[in-house]
């Protein structure tokens, strides 16, 4: 493996100019990731015009650095303010913030940082060693397999609900309802649009998410301004203290999170956000203490934190091998690859050995650099807590508005953000959790699309949805999980009845 090509690539990555680009991209990624409403996808979209003027290697380094940093940085406002910086951090925001309230802010930060770095490295190793084989497997997934996979993911939503099951279901249904707004994905028939053109493309996802997490939190802070701060006020001490203990205890969760994250990243169309949700719910399902999830569970942080950064590298697998994007970031990257004369395809590793090797090196460098750079970012961000919330919140609101607008340069998105913020505020005041609604939005759209296209392909014969072997396996797993859930519910009901 280590030959002339490797050293050439290494030299290219470590050229002073490339390193400078990487550092600048890292700062940019940290900023975009940490600002609620600005996502990793947007960071890369903004980066593309700049990379036009660069040779291929610095351009690739810039993209890899930006995404790795942005996905981690999304955790910072989660820990500090209970506002996820990017959708990929949404799954475990409650846990991260609960830890801060307990005075374990630096431990939460440390777990997020270290699991992000390890997840990223894990994904990179898989990318280097197995890219062609895994891409070959993932490309065989048709709408049938995705349908069962999404159904499996939605089943997981039940595990994401903390506390009251009925309220969690209400939230999930709200999310599924929101997913139906707009032109229906197949026939283009308008639903719940009331002839408003802005609603034709549905509620903008980023704006809705930002509204539900950030604006609602701002409203909560405003209504509680008179009361003393609930946040434990202190600068961050040693971020890495205690992380080793947690990781040793939950090492199995971490590897599982890495594997789930990479796998979901490789599947076309699903990225870091879905990876974090699924890994978190799987973690809760198999946890010995599922009741702590959502209330500051270290285990939940490890599960999800390990998954989202692993998905970033995974998404490059089908993008490089087949030119098929693994997530929304690589969808943009593919255009850049062509522009730089790197033709995606199974031959890319033979045709452009130096560039692809440099890309691999960039992944390792980015995730190792994440540790010191992320540590500095955490240190700096600690000061946010000492800013009076009365000044901090308007600034955050401003960033949220900019972020929502910038996705599609659409002022309507700001309105959506504000309205959904009020909706989420009312939900929180009534103890209805927000997370299931977001998951419903993410998966509802996919569920409808994959179910209907599959039915069209089999001329409406539902039984043929399990015709294909992988689909049949996924269906079997789904049904078994449902049966297990019904069984345990029935046992609980019987136990309650016998007691009575």
């Amino acid at each position, binding site marked *: 493996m280590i030959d002339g090509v490797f050293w050439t690539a290494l030299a290219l990555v470590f050229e002073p100019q490339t390193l400078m680009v990487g550092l600048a991209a890292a700062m940019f990624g940290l900023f975009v990731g940490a600002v609620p409403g600005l996502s990793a996808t947007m960071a890369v979209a903004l980066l593309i015009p700049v990379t036009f003027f660069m040779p291929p290697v610095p351009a690739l380094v810039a993209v890899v650095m930006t995404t790795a940093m942005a996905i981690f940085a999304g955790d910072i406002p989660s820990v500090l303010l209970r506002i996820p910086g990017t959708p990929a951090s949404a799954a475990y925001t409650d846990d991260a913030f609960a830890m801060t309230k307990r005075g374990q802010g630096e431990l939460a930060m440390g777990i997020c940082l270290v699991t992000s770095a390890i997840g990223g490295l894990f994904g990179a190793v898989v990318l280097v060693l197995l890219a062609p084989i895994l891409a070959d497997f993932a490309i*065989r997934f048709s709408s049938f397999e995705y349908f069962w996979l999404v159904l499996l993911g939605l089943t997981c939503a039940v595990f994401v609900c903390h506390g009251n099951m009925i309220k969690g279901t209400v939230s999930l249904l709200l999310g599924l309802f929101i997913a139906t707004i707009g032109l229906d994905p197949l026939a283009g028939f308008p639903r719940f649009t009331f002839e408003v053109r802005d609603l034709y*493309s549905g509620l903008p996802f980023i704006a809705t998410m930002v509204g539900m997490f950030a604006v609602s939190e701002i409203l909560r802070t405003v209504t509680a301004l008179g009361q003393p701060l609930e946040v434990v006020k202190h600068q961050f001490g040693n971020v890495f203290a205690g992380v080793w203990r947690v990781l040793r205890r939950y090492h199995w969760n971490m590897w599982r999170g890495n594997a789930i994250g990479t796998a979901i990243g490789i599947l076309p169309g699903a990225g870091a956000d879905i990876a974090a949700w699924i890994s978190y719910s799987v973690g809760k399902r198999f946890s010995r203490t599922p009741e702590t999830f959502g209330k500051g569970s270290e285990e939940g942080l490890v599960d999800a934190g390990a998954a989202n950064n692993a998905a970033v590298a995974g998404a490059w697998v089908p993008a490089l091998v087949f030119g098929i994007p693994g997530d929304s970031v690589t969808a943009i990257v593919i255009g850049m690859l062509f522009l730089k004369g790197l033709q995606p395809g199974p031959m890319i590793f033979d045709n452009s050995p130096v560039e692809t090797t440099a890309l691999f090196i960039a992944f390792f460098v980015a995730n190792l650099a994440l540790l010191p750079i992320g540590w500095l970012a955490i240190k700096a961000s600690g000061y946010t807590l000492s800013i009076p919330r009365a000044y901090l919140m308007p600034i955050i609101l401003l960033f949220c508005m900019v972020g929502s607008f910038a996705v599609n340069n659409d002022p309507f998105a700001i309105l959506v953000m504000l309205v959904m913020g009020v909706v989420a505020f009312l939900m929180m005041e009534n103890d209805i959790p927000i997370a299931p609604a977001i998951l419903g939005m993410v998966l509802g759209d996919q569920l409808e699309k994959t179910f209907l*296209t599959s039915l069209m392909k089999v001329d409406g014969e539902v039984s043929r949805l399990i015709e294909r072997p992988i689909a049949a396996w996924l269906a079997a797993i789904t049904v078994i999980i449902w049966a297990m859930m019904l069984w345990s519910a029935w046992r609980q009901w019987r136990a309650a009845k016998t007691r009575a």
Partner: protein
Amino acid sequence: MKRRTFLGGTVAASTVVAAPAVVSAQAAWPNRPVQVIVPWGAGGGTDYHARTMATLLEREFRNPFTVVQRTGGSGVVGHSAIAEAAPDGYTIGTVTVEIGMMHWAGLTKLTVADYAPISLLNLIPAGVQVAANSPWRTLKDMVDAVRANPGRHKSSGTGQGGIWHLAIAGLLNSMQIRPDAAPWVPSEGAASGLQDLVAGGVDIVPCAIAEASTLLRAGRVRSLAVMTASRVPAFPDVPTVKEAVGSDWTCESFLSLMAPKGTPADVVARLDAAVKKIMEGPEWKQAMDARGFGVNYMGAGQLQAFATRSNEAFGGVMRALGIART
């Protein structure tokens, strides 16, 4: 003291600018960034053309040309944004073949008449792609199979009533086969349609042959024909529909640079001239070669006539398919 000087300067400057405002605003074009609106996603074919062109225009005019995505609503959002922008030369955009289709489907009232055409950016010929393990070796095999079993073999590659849907429907129609004999399975675009083709979910993807080039080279899909009058230079081994089955059906998507109606004629003319110069240069050719696109230029007048013809042709196919609502 300092402040006063500054104020005095500003007043003087604004008087100078204000007096001949109308004349100087046009003569000075461009003196601030020009927005290029793209109605389709970042990284796709339209975006690729727009970004490459914006970069080269930027150098030509020594003025920023900023690409802005306005996606969604099957292209309605972005196309409306271009048409409704102020016609001052500071907003232009990529108008695609869908401008002659969306209004037939009742999605919008916009037509090509609502724009000031600048130049054609490219013609994108449709191809007929099947999976590498498909039993069909030629277009005739495929057409025979569809004729023998109407409704059995599914096709995909864009939304319902999208350009590639019309491509296959028009081809079948021209062979006296029901246009819906290869039922359409909507997808988000050619990339997801092609992936589904490789995965065995659908049988035919009649998307642009350039969009399939990666999977063609990887040996995962086969192109049975291109829907053009003569073979596409980048794919010399792929026969035309005429050669393969004798039908005269052709289908090319187009993408063009247009401005809102009412944009000053001299601005349009200067942009058109710059685009022409760029498309004759080596950089454009190189960028198009990289993705298997051709180089096709048409000036403003020619484009207007072409887009109008395209509008009529697709209206006809959509009526035959029963998806025209107006």
